[in-house]
């Protein structure tokens, strides 16, 4: 899941400063689950911005709030047309994807990001999130016992551990487990330690052509289906 955190109120206030009517738009999927931009956070941000306005005494903004199921699908955004017409700017609490889809969908309205999209990760306990996937496009988890060295090793090396491992922790941060020690232990447990003895050639990240696209449908020429 995509994990993000809300931007600081100072930054948000700077961003919205030129706009009078601001629609705060939450997202009901990842941003709700990671607690950065669901309906509760939309409402909290709304309240906080109103406090700021009341306290500073220069009350030029009027806020409205709404949360859609998913900002990354234009069909959900289509339901917002009337609300967006009434706004001078859209403060999106969706991830970077949501912000962009909204910007595409509402070409005449500035769309501002309310969160910093951080990584793809999982909850380790309530309120604590850890990165787990770098979306490198070339998954090696079968060889590394289901533990990703790209995201979980500080160096992202493919043939570990390096000399910086100490008591199972990383030299860069003693609170972080050494990913390669975790990989070793799990391979040992699975009886696949031979995978440790193999050499994995370095990966060439430059081969990733951005922006990437996945096409999962058969391209048909017009009229072709009629035989």
């Amino acid at each position: 899941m995509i994990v993000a955190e809300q931007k600081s109120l100072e930054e948000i206030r700077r961003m919205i400063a030129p706009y009078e009517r601001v629609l705060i738009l939450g997202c009901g999927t990842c941003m709700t689950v990671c607690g950065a931009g669901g309906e509760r956070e939309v409402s909290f941000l709304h309240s906080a911005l109103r406090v700021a306005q009341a306290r500073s005494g220069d009350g030029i903004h009027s806020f409205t709030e709404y949360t859609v199921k998913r900002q990354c699908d234009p069909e959900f955004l289509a339901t917002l047309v009337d609300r967006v017409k009434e706004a001078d700017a859209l403060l999106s609490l969706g991830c970077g994807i949501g912000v962009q889809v909204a910007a595409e969908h509402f070409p005449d309205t500035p769309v501002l990001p309310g969160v910093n999209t951080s990584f793809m990760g999982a909850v380790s306990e309530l309120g604590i999130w850890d990165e787990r996937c770098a979306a490198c496009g070339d998954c090696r988890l079968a060889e590394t016992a289901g533990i990703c060295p790209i995201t979980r090793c500080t160096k992202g090396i493919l043939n570990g551990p390096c000399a910086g491992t100490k008591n199972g922790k990383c030299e860069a941060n003693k609170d972080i487990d050494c990913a390669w020690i975790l990989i070793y232990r799990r391979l040992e447990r699975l009886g696949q330690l031979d995978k440790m003895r193999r050499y994995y050639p370095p990966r060439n990240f430059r081969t990733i052509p951005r922006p990437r696209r996945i096409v999962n449908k058969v391209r048909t020429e017009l009229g072709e289906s009629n035989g």
Partner: protein
Amino acid sequence: MVSTYADSVKRASFDDSLMPPCQAACPLRMEIREYVDLIAQGRVMESLQVIRDSNPFPSICAHVCTHPCEDACRRGQVDNPVAIRALKRFAIEFGADRMIQLEADTKHSERVAIVGSGPAGLAAAYYLRKLGYPVTIFEAYSELGGMLRVGIPQYRLPREVLDIEVQRLIQMGVEIRTNTRVVSLDLLFELGYKAVFITVGAHQSLRMGIEGEESAGVVDGATFLREVNLGLKPPVGASVAVVGGGNVAIDAARTALRLDANEVKILYRRSRAEMPADPAEVKQAEEEGVEILFLVAPIKITRESGRLHVTCIRLTLGEPDASGRPRPVPIKDSEFTMDFDTLIAAIGQAPQIPGDFHLRIGKGTTVWVDPVTLLTNRAGVFAGGDAVTGPATVTQALAAGRQAAFRIDEYLHHRYPLADKQAKEALAGDLLPKTVEIIRKANRFEPPLLPPKARVKDFRPVELIYNWETAIGEARRCLRCGIGAEILFQDKCATCLTCLRVCPYHVPYLDDGGMIQIPADQCQACGICVAECPAKAIVLRKPYDRRHITEELDHVFQAAAQSRFKPLIIGFGCQYGLFGTGALASLWREAQAGIWIVPVLCVAKVEPEHMLRAFEMGAEGVFIAGCGEQCAREDTAFWVLQRVEKVKRALTQLGLEPERLQTVHLQAIDEDPATTMDKFAEQIGKLCLASALKQEGKG
């Protein structure tokens, strides 16, 4: 004091709660959860109002109800049931029930006669009068009340209590004919009554069917109690035997002790476990010196030189009989003899219906009625109470009277009887062991009793009333069944599992289909998941609390706008317990600053938006005052601190000092709460000054 129709509609439309087990067990379907909760908040007058909404004579029930609600109370699965009856008694006494005046207008011309003035008759008169019918009660004895007057001893139901309720009926315009035995129903119809309600009770004692039962010195329980209750003091001698194990037997035994008897033995043919009498009454009787001989039955009575020789036999318990209780079986050659001055037979009673009424008799000697319409075989003649059911409880009789009033109303207006409204689904299911484990244990406070020696001197009421502290403590034990959380907006739910992770009681779970379920019968309605749900998809079944906070805030700001106190300080204070009524209520008066309290039903329900809203509306300082150790729920303080930290972070980013938001546990500090508040106010004052100077410096 009167809730209007609009109120009830408004209330109902926001109320998705399930009927709690206590209410489902109550013959009158009283809103027990609601009135107990109001007592827990110290709102006794409102509690009494809720009580009076569904009970015509709550002061009577408060003394003598057999409280089936307590048997159903799910708190019993945790430790002991909530002492509901004693709490009602508290609300009656402290809510000034005796000051309440009732009035009723006559809206209809059809006159209704009620034969018998027991609880069923009085309740029917009450409701018929409220519906606007002219009502006449016919009573054979000199005073109203039926069994309430002649059956129940004064130490359990003081006569003033009954008199006040009767007086209120007279105020409402009920016509009373005492010393009037109705001999013919035809005559009533000739007198112009359009409907008759027969509630003659069950006053005829059953006979033991043993040799010597007719001897002088042998009396039946109902007659004995009636004589005592009507002011006669029948001589019972020094030693008295009472036969039977029901409430009448216990009443007779304790009454005999209050006369001239100094030794009273109850002979009961089964064991303690099978005794139908209320265990609390049995305990009180034993404290007073009543001795109970179990598995003993009299088989022969002879009278010699003024004493009764009672031959008894010992019994043992055999197979269950038709009533489901084990059948007592005599043990051979176990006869023994005891001497008594008086023997009171209290083995049961049955109705005795005058033959001239020409009513169809149903089971035993009871009146047959249609179970839906309550009509007897005669047109316009209804019946209810013990006369129909056989001996039952006061509350059942009140319920029968109420039902009869509505059926009579329908009959007189040629309407089809409406089936009893079961508006709410009843909550079913026991608490799971894992839930029980986490619920804080708190033992039941019993109301104080007179010491046994003081009791037996006269007919003073035995049970005393709670004081504020114990009543509120007891009321807080209520688990508030059936108003827990529910996912109102399934489409909003992102199945993020926050509720599952924050619930202190481990109630929400993922079902096989991957949906979150919050079982209503386990939820403790603490409100934590409601506030923490990132999708705002969860509500409490009684969402009153949430609206309440916002409404109260608005109310406070309107009021504060006219106040000259500066700086304005808003406090969200737990409304439960002594804390809400005592310490906080007086704060705004005692402290020097403009402190305004927003009462909340548990601080776990205060959301960050509420705190921010206070600042938005101009509060210079905000505090959250929880009840600390008194809290009946888990993890409250933890979540309040989480939210406070979140708001403090936001305040800092907005350039406001985080010290403007504080949590206080007034219970935990030794000093006077007002002093604490003054210090807080002083601190806020300094912050205000500092920020004003800063502003000026900038400008």
